[in-house]
């Protein structure tokens, strides 16, 4: 009962701060980015703050408010493409225009962003050794993920945990791989992911391995983390609550979804 009263109070306090909703956030963002029109930035930020307040109070959103949030994400697609983050841009756009791909039907993205990263290259090298060793010892090697306990216990897997988190990326204690902070293209696409190797033997003692990364695109809710995303615009920045980005899945504006990057190679036992 107390929580309903609390929500009511929050809702009333949000309505008191009601802000106009921009008709075309892309136009306002372009104005800020290229001409540093700070009034446009204020206009956008006020609308976002007002909608964040409404989301925290679990209020309904009007059609205009929903359209604004959808267009905001579409604007991130333009901004992402313009700045060279094509995978991150594709994911942001799919969040508001996709149909919520489940794990069995993931959105496919270009694997280049993963396979060129230092932590992925190092993990592939270590996994090849593990696969080859298991095959030699007649142990299971067909589908191995990088968080496999036996793999992580190997001496050749240990250095993955000591790689430079800033320039190379590293394996965390749980076995998840973390993108390097300075690899912005990957880091903005997927901060943490699991690399899976699906291998078969082909004639001539070659291994054929399909390398796969499956990840879920979603945001942390208000209740779990108080995260914000800072988007630089002109000389200022737009601050968007991750809780709001998550809340829009509950009002039909966006859908969390699975996405996949996959590539194949043939290799001989090292």
């Amino acid at each position, binding site marked *: 009962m107390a929580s309903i009263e609390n929500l009511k109070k929050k809702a009333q306090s949000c309505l008191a701060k009601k802000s106009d909703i921009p008709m075309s956030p*892309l136009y306002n963002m372009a104005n800020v980015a290229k001409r540093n029109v700070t009034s446009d930035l204020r206009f956008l930020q006020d609308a976002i703050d007002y909608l964040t307040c409404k989301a925290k109070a679990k209020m309904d959103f009007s059609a205009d408010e929903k359209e604004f949030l959808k267009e905001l994400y579409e604007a991130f697609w333009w901004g992402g493409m313009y700045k060279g983050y094509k995978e991150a841009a594709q994911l942001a756009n799919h969040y508001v225009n996709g149909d919520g791909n489940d794990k069995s039907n993931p959105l496919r993205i270009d694997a280049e962003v993963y396979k060129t990263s230092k932590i992925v290259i190092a993990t592939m090298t270590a996994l090849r050794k593990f696969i080859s060793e298991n095959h030699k010892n007649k142990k299971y090697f067909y589908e191995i993920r990088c968080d496999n306990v036996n793999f992580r216990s190997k001496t050749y897997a240990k250095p993955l945990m000591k790689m430079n988190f800033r320039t190379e990326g590293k394996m965390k204690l749980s076995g998840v791989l973390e993108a390097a902070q300075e690899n912005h293209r990957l880091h903005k*696409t997927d901060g943490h992911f699991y690399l899976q190797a699906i291998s078969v033997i082909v004639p001539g003692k070659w291994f054929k391995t399909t390398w796969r990364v499956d990840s879920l695109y979603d945001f942390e809710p208000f209740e779990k983390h108080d995260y914000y995303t800072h988007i630089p615009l002109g000389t200022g920045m737009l601050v968007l609550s991750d809780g709001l980005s998550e809340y829009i899945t509950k009002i039909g504006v966006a859908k969390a979804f699975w996405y996949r990057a996959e590539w194949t190679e043939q290799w001989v036992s090292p």
Partner: protein
Amino acid sequence: MKILLVLISMVGLLSCSNESVEREQCPITIDSVSIVDSMEIKSITYYLVYRISGWSDKTEILELYDAEPIFDHCANSNKDPIFGDSLSLSHQVKHVYLNAKERTLDIEYMDVQPSNSITSNFKLELKK
């Protein structure tokens, strides 16, 4: 109408800027950074910085500086940290120990999932 607005916006994005000052281009999203604690040992003041980076999938980082850092508009510091590491996603931080001799941090975790992070929770401590 919507198509027209998108076209106008595109012209705006691709046209020349009237900004005369050249500024470093930041990535598509920039980190949030805050100095959360400091401690003086043998006339050196160490600063603990809490950094959150990423877009939909965030990474939390603790950095240690041996002088007060200044961050630019892209959240880059004017000097390199003497130590930094990303935090575990699956455990809550219990203690952040300053190891002044090694110029590092020893981060101790609890065996529970991290809950709503409050930056002020991070305090520099010395091991007894």
